[in-house]
């Protein structure tokens, strides 16, 4: 089986499997964050649970980080190998005649998403790690109440940050628009090319980023100063 993952097809399958995992994570992440639109308490409770549960923190979180790193590293490795396979470039190439922009530019939408993840880590993950594991404050409290909701609102005060998030989510939508059905195709499931599955993929690719955009805009427009 180790030989399989060294082959070109094996790498494709590995890319697809990490993509499935990340697409599932996006659903969970959105499900938690969307509660912030209607219930401050529920969002705080869920955030505290996710932030302090040992299984989430020490099992799921490392696997997730590994999944993200793997997806990016493998994406770059494949892109470099593909560039090498191309040889001389065409003087005239009409890519739009036979394929979508999204499918031809996954590396660029991926790079924007990578930049976003760096910003997102600086915004939320590093401060969390600092508070919990360096300063040792696992209470999740600040001034007598949970800090998560206020921290979220505080982050989205800046219009520049909201704009950066919106742009990143639009690129995420484009990435998913090709990536969703592509992942199924890579693992050999032709159902990904059936009309119903393509429609479901399009709904997923638009709904997930749109949900995150709504959350960022909502908190920008409704922050309690």
């Amino acid at each position: 089986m180790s030989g399989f993952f060294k082959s070109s097809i094996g790498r494709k399958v590995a890319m697809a499997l990490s993509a499935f995992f990340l697409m599932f994570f996006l659903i969970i992440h959105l499900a938690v964050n969307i509660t912030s639109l209607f219930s401050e308490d529920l969002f705080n409770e869920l955030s505290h649970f996710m932030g302090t549960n040992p299984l989430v923190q020490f099992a799921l979180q490392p696997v997730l980080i590994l999944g993200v790193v793997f997806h990016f590293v493998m994406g770059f490795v494949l892109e470099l190998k593909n560039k090498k396979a191309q040889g001389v470039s065409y003087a005239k190439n009409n890519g739009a005649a036979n394929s979508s922009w999204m499918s031809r530019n996954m590396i660029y939408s991926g790079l924007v998403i990578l930049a976003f993840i760096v910003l997102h880590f600086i915004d939320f993950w590093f401060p969390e790690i600092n508070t919990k594991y360096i300063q040792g404050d696992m209470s999740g409290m600040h001034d007598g109440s949970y800090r998560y909701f206020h921290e979220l609102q505080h982050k989205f005060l800046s219009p520049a940050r909201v704009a950066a998030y919106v742009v990143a989510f639009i690129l995420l939508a484009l990435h998913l628009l090709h990536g969703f059905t592509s992942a199924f195709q890579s693992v050999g499931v032709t159902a990904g090319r059936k009309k119903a599955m393509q429609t479901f993929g399009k709904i997923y690719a638009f709904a997930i980023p749109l949900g995150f955009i709504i959350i960022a805009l909502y908190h920008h427009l409704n922050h309690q100063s």
Partner: protein
Amino acid sequence: MNLTLKIWRQKDASSKGQMVDYKVTDISEHMSFLEMMDVLNEQLINSGEEPVAFDHDCREGICGMCSMYINGEAHGPDRGVTTCQLHMRMFKDGDTITIEPFRAAAFPVIKDLVVDRTSFERIQQAGGYISVNTSGNTQDANALPISKHAADEAMDAATCIGCGACVATCKNSSAMLFVGAKVSQYALLPQGQVEAVDRVKNMVAQMDLEGFGNCTNTGACEIECPKGISLDNIARMNRELMKASVKG
């Protein structure tokens, strides 16, 4: 019609090539693209210049030899055709047409528009066959019951003529549509089962060895394929390789 042609000229495999402009006049819209190239070459020969080298054989869309990248597309702007089946009525009087060889590191240019596609032959030799005893006691193929559905799909895969348009079109220069078709035509039939594990493993290994890129499912290959080979064949090859890897 009168046309301006921008054609890749390259003396031999080791020379550096370049695009050269030519004018052709009085081209009939009923001509095939290769007939238009014949007119140009006649013109070049008459003026003492070296004619443009290009591959062609059957000129009826079967041999898979003609291999031009015309105005940014393999076999030109029409669908379901090879270059010999492309008609000049697809172009307008006064058009400028860019003509390049199929590009891929695994398809090196031999001369002008002629590329070396023997990498495809080596992939075929690695497993694109069934071993049958032909020493006088060959079994009648019809003695094996095969469902209409499987027979149709296998036949569809077998229509691949190995022209390399998929590789030329793919932004990654991937040969997976070609190999997918060749694996599929046997994978769907009982005759192909005996060597199924070795076939897919060896053909994929040879494909990787030849330096073809990795498929990213853009679907460009199936659009440009003159025989309409479906992307489903790549998915089937992926399944076949997964199965073969588990079986060992």
